[in-house]
């Protein structure tokens, strides 16, 4: 049979059901791929032996009443995994082995899947290119020397390179959608509160949200259904009935109203992005959707607002990494204060330090009102923009990113240009809404580009449906040559 690892998750599940492949052979195929893809540096930790044991157990007693029967999955190293090292891409957690399993990964395992390994990411999910990881750059399979996006760069790279049939990431300001866009894959940031944050190493609590990264929309629906759900251990988790996203997937979008926000046409946007957006509009229109021009007037304040709120929360969330109870502790330091200073200086990388400093500054007495408090007010206005628009429309279509994947090192010395990568993705996090990035085309270099569909809170099904119809009619095919093996 043809290489099973380049199939969609849904096809793999079908093949497993039809006994065309066993979970063990499937797992072995991925292990082989992973071992020949070390150049990509997508993995921080692999758990092959454990995965093979689980696969054998599954094959002995297969249960196909589950959403992810016998599926090996690699996950971002921001999810705490029981007895498996969890680093968050940081030196300060280089020896940290949790005694607990995050709710989201537990949900995945409870649906029949098992862990294949932990995927590289930007340190504490702070970055847009996976270049801030203590464990080195990740390479985009689209091309040598290209970043895979970030912070879920290990996830996007592994998925596009067929090192895992699907994966999960976390998205605080675009960390799922931007890498999905850079690798020609599907990424969904769910509504804030749909997936539990319990057991995920926190970056910015009011923005962090876990979500699926997959090759197809159908896969995305399967993964979302598996990982989401109310969790009483997370006070911000939404208590609602579980939805059957994959079963309810429909490709009829006739009559749906799609908002096109004029503020997303930014200065100096490459022509290719504009053309991609036009292509997307045409596809949806041809499918019977109605395009409506809308305005989200506070969009331009989203990025500065985000870069106040996220670092503020991060500066507090990362205070626990102090060398006292777990993780890295500097051997030097003659008293408590010095131990803190050395531990955190040696344990954190530059980008994390930069954000801790920004966050500490904006919360400081005398600056709080001017920065943090004002940012919270602007955040409400941004949310209100969306709320107002969604009285008239069903979803919003925008580009996912202002460019395709860039070269490693291209933006590392210019944090602001790096931050600008998130310009289309951060408003959604500030508003707590669901948004999907789906592959829509390539630029003239042949690098993938994505479009973003934003939905109302808890309207994941609708944007998945639109994405499903779009996917069928877009004709995008991710042509990745396995140059690394």
């Amino acid at each position: 049979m043809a290489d099973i690892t380049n199939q969609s998750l849904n096809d793999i599940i079908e093949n497993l059901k039809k006994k065309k492949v066993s979970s063990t052979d499937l797992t072995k195929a991925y292990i082989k791929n992973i071992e020949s893809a070390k150049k990509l540096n997508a993995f921080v930790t692999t758990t092959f032996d454990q995965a093979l044991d689980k696969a054998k157990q599954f094959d002995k007693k297969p249960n196909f009443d589950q959403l992810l029967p016998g599926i090996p999955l690699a996950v971002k190293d921001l999810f705490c995994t029981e007895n498996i090292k969890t680093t968050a891409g940081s030196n300060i957690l280089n020896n940290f082995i949790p005694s607990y399993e995050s709710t989201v990964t537990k949900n995945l395992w409870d649906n029949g899947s098992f862990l294949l390994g932990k995927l590289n990411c930007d340190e504490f999910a702070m970055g847009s290119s996976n270049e801030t990881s203590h464990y080195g750059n990740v390479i985009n399979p689209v091309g040598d020397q290209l970043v895979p996006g970030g912070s879920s760069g290990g996830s996007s790279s592994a998925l596009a390179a067929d090192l895992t049939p699907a994966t999960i990431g976390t998205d605080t300001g675009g960390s799922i959608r931007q890498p999905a866009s850079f690798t020609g894959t599907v990424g969904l940031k769910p509504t804030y509160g749909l997936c539990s944050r319990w057991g995920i190493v926190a970056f910015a609590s009011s923005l962090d949200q876990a979500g699926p990264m997959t090759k197809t929309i159908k896969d995305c629906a399967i993964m979302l259904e598996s990982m989401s759900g109310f969790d009483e251990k997370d006070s911000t988790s939404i208590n609602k009935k579980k939805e059957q996203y994959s079963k309810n997937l429909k490709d009829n979008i006739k009559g749906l109203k799609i908002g096109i926000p004029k503020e997303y046409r930014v200065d100096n946007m490459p022509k290719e992005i504009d053309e991609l957006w036009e292509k997307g509009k045409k596809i949806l229109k041809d499918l019977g959707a109605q395009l409506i021009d809308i305005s989200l007037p506070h969009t331009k304040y989203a990025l500065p607002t985000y870069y106040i709120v996220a670092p503020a929360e991060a500066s507090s969330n990362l205070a626990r990494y102090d060398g006292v109870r777990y993780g890295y502790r500097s051997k030097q330091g003659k008293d408590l204060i010095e131990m803190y200073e050395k531990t955190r200086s040696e344990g954190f990388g530059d980008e994390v330090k930069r954000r801790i400093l920004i966050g500490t500054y904006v919360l400081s007495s005398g600056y709080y009102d001017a920065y943090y408090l004002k940012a919270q007010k602007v955040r409400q206005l941004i949310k209100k923009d969306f709320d107002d628009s969604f009285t008239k429309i069903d979803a919003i279509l925008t580009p996912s990113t202002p460019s395709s994947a860039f070269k490693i090192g291209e933006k590392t010395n210019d944090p602001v240009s790096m931050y600008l990568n998130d310009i289309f993705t951060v408003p959604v996090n500030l508003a707590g809404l669901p948004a999907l990035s789906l592959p829509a085309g390539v630029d003239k270099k042949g690098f993938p580009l994505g479009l973003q569909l934003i939905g109302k809170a808890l309207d994941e099904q609708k944007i998945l449906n639109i994405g499903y119809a779009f996917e069928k009619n877009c004709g995008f095919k991710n042509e990745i040559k396995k140059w690394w093996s």
Partner: protein
Amino acid sequence: MSKEKFDYFIKGEKGKYEVVIGLEVHAQVLSKSKLFSGSSTKFGADPNNQVSLIDSAFPGMLPVINEECVKQAIRTGLGLNAKINNYSVFDRKNYFYADLPQGYQISQYKNPIVGEGKVLLDMPYGSKEIGIERLHLEQDAGKSIHDMDPSNTYVDLNRSGIALMEIVSKPDLRSPDEVNAYIKKLRSIMRYLGTCDGNMQEGSLRADVNVSVRKEGDTNFGTRCEIKNVNSIKFMQMAIEYEAARQVELIENGEKIDQETRLFDTKKNETRSMRSKEDAHDYRYFPDPDLLPLKLEQKLINDLKKSLPELPDKKKERFVKEYGLNAYEANVLVSEKEISDYYEEVAKLSDKKLAATWMMGDLFAMLNDRGLDISKSPISAKHFAELVQAIKSGEISGRIAKEVFEIMVESGDNPKKIIESKGMKQQSDPKELEKMINEILSKNKDKVDQYKAGKEKLFGFFVGQVMKLSGGKANPQLTNEILKKLLKG
């Protein structure tokens, strides 16, 4: 009753100074588990045995509010006659310390759960109202232990995350005595409510004391100093006295008082500077994004209000009205819930006034001597009531009652049994008494003559003889009556 006048001033050379005190009391919430985790709150466990992943701030751990702690805070707020806020917010107070695992304490800053209230104090110079500024919920920190090892500090996180209520008073207190009365009243209210055990030895009740002084008659407040974390009333009083005197001396010498945080050194009995206002921490408060604002339904508040027990002020009023006690007696007997319960049980079965007198006298003295709470009293309320009734009915005299009381303490027997088995019953049969008295009078004819000649002081001698002959059991009242009658004849 003439009332005393308030008179607590620090006398300087240039005048009298009034002391202004405000307290921030930290009261540990009585609850089985911590404010945001399921760990036990029991006192005295081995170090780090009551610590969850949340209390020790492992990556990805999230706080979930303990509803019982919220209810306890509401009950306490209601007990302090305070406004309960339907909307309150948990904030993070950020600072680094080895026994603060999260690197921040979850507390309430701008929007506390309880707003303004008041507490009534009974002072010798009348009743005084102390304003409550607010009450908020917060997490306790762990404990750093510096004296177990010469070069290392050990950390015990058992306390980390336990719920505290910080009760902030207005600067309405004016003397160490008022502080004493205030803390005792707060403690009494919380113990009635069952919201805090008030155990100061175990650290369940501690306070930061704000002290300033001003010339008598001034209306502006002076610069205040905050004395941190004082854990006994005695130390609070000593710290206030020291601090007030220190501030007066500075003023009289023309020096400035710096607003600062100070520590009370219990060995040297002095306060000393911990950090100045300039060095004060910048806590970078902001709303905790892991927790939603706390929204309370009015129904919950109303239901809790309905289920509140009778509190000391109300109970005191009732004791005066229902049992005919004076204000002083009522005050003492309602000071602790267990005492008032004991009294009410005794009063149900015996003379109410006499019960109060005997409880506040012999019973309290005995408990005090033995260092016992009334709940551990060797004499049950039922037995104590029987004793009171035996006195009231004249079955035994007061003097004998004291003996019976002692035996009750030692044996735990009921008074009837003791009185009967030891033949301690009072001699109240007039015929028997008359016989006895006649015997004495006939033996002391000379004294009888002297008495009749006007030496009335001898009456006491005859009473003494009767008591001696009866072994102390003669009914004193009857003895008096019969003696008078026979001496006349």
